[in-house]
């Protein structure tokens, strides 16, 4: 029994890690089709903002919100100055965001030094048999679900979401209908950046705070979004993180972490060969509702 719970917990943390890594990218890559290679650095900024706030006595939950807002505002600046010139030019955006990531990573090193004092992980541990589980990770697993649900709600059930989908699918038509596409793009990019900052801040206590910490999230984030596919980015990300950690967790538990990582990458390749549209294209068979927003 404790073994089963432990496996379930590992599955949950693996999936939550993938989802949190991918959260901002779901919006920026999945919805806007901007290949944002500075994604990891956005998360790093979130972690830095949260850490700096906690050091000044701000309680951790508030610090997380501050981080999200700060990185969101930073996203607005980046979007206005740079990224807006690259809509529709995915490969140009890829190169320019790589440049931004270099500047942010090394810039953080020059400004703040090689590391920041860390944040203690909130919450203790609960024990069950031989195993014990971090309360904070359990909270993160739940929070992931809440965040995704909220994102899905915004995207599908609000006026902003409707306009955003329209703008992403056909900008000219949307403009003709009186939607201020420019604003929508800016707001969506800011939302993606804020989510990246939020998840960076949430993951900050579990990692060491350093200028190049963002790199660890890049590969998981891209794999999650790509395997999820474009038919429905939110559902796809949920499905892909579930599928990937479903493969990774037992393999890692039985054969070690390396085998787990290898299994994750191979699964990603196989899924893409078999389902070029990603996991979310399975859903399309059943719902027949094509939301090819990311194409």
């Amino acid at each position: 029994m404790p073994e089963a719970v432990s496996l379930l917990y590992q599955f949950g943390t693996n999936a939550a890690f993938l989802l949190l890594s991918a959260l901002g990218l779901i919006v920026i890559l999945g919805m806007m089709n901007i290949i944002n290679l500075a994604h990891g650095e956005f998360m790093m900024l979130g972690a830095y903002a949260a850490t700096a706030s906690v050091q000044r006595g701000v309680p951790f939950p508030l610090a997380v919100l501050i981080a999200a807002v700060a990185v969101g505002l930073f996203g607005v600046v980046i979007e206005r100055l740079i990224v807006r010139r690259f809509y529709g030019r995915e490969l140009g955006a890829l190169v320019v965001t790589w440049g931004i990531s270099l500047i942010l990573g090394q810039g953080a090193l020059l400004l703040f030094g090689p590391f920041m004092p860390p944040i203690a992980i909130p919450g203790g541990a609960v024990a069950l048999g031989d195993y014990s589980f971090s309360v904070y990770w359990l909270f993160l697993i739940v929070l992931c679900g809440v965040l995704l649900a909220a994102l899905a709600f915004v995207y599908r059930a609000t006026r902003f979401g409707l306009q955003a989908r329209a703008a992403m699918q056909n900008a000219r038509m949307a403009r003709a209908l009186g939607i201020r596409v420019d604003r929508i793009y800016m707001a969506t990019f800011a939302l993606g950046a804020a989510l990246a900052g939020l998840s960076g801040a949430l993951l900050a206590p579990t990692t060491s705070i350093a200028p190049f910490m963002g790199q660890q999230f890049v590969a998981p984030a891209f794999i999650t979004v790509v395997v999820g596919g474009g038919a429905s980015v939110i559902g796809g990300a949920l499905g892909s993180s579930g599928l990937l950690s479903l493969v990774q967790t037992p393999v890692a538990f039985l054969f070690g972490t390396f085998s787990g990582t290898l299994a994750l990458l191979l699964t990603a390749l196989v899924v893409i060969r078999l389902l070029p549209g990603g996991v979310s294209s399975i859903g399309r068979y059943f719902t027949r509702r094509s939301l090819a927003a990311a194409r």
Partner: protein
Amino acid sequence: MSVAAASRAAPRGSGLARLLNGPHDIGRTPGAWAVLAAGLASFLVYPHWATAFQATNVAYYLLNIPMALGLSLLWGYGGVLSFGQVAFFAVAGYVYGIVAGNLPDAPWGTWLGVVSGLGASAALAAVFGYFIFYARVAAWIVPILTLVLALLLSTFLGLTAGSMWTVGQVPLGGYNGMTGIPALQVGTLTFQDYAFYYLTVGVVVLCYIGLRAWVNAHRGQVLMAIREDTLRTELLGYDVRREQLRAFVLAATLAGVSGLLYVQWGNYITPSVTGLQQAALPVVWVAVGGRDSLLAVAICTFLLNQLSYVLSSAGNQYALVIIGALLVAVMMFAPEGIVVTLARRTWRRRR
């Protein structure tokens, strides 16, 4: 004029000169050719006033050009961006190291290494490319998949530290890399220092001329047609998947050429050559130079390699910031590439 007609119009007999002067690269005026010839001549005489160290260093700036040219072909001319050219670079280097290292006494050992290194790169590209192009995945997924390939290879090679990863007499060496890779030999001549410099210059010139002819020939034009309109090209009777795969394999082989030159240069290779940092560099060189011009890419690869070395050997912590800022600035103000933009301006003024 259709693609097929264009290729039929291309002359056959004394075709190379015509192909070289075809429309698909910058630098077609007699003046431009004169500048190119002067540039080549200066590379040929450079060792006369350079130390062996300086010549080897310049050779290092040059040796990445074949890989960059391959990516230019694939991305600029074919519209397919690969983020994983370094994987083929690494495979060629490692396979060369294994083959040449196991045949230290055979006079042809190093040359067998060259053939098998290039063969391995091409074979890996063929298999991987089959998965990508025959699955017809969306264009924006290709860079991410190739990046995953590069990272996977880097991770795998990093794990080969144990003795079970010794191939013949050559240990793969894990994260610390493979050391003591023998240099190319012909008779008693070992390609090091000045000899290596001339070898590199020769290979780079051959790769450039070959590719320039290729993009102006039939195959190159089909590739550009696919970039412009995949569906129409397919309806004209071309197998788009096969053409893309062919370009992918060619680009991978060129990355392999760079990998081979790299192991000649340092007699050493590590998994980090296919890591995240390195994987992005070819994309940077190609994008900054101007991806749809082979010449621009070659020039820019040389200059950026030099810049990065100069900045870092001065102990400058701002090296990465400067390169990043350069990248952002170029993409914003000269999105066609800085070399291409400058060349076009000069050309217009002359007119």
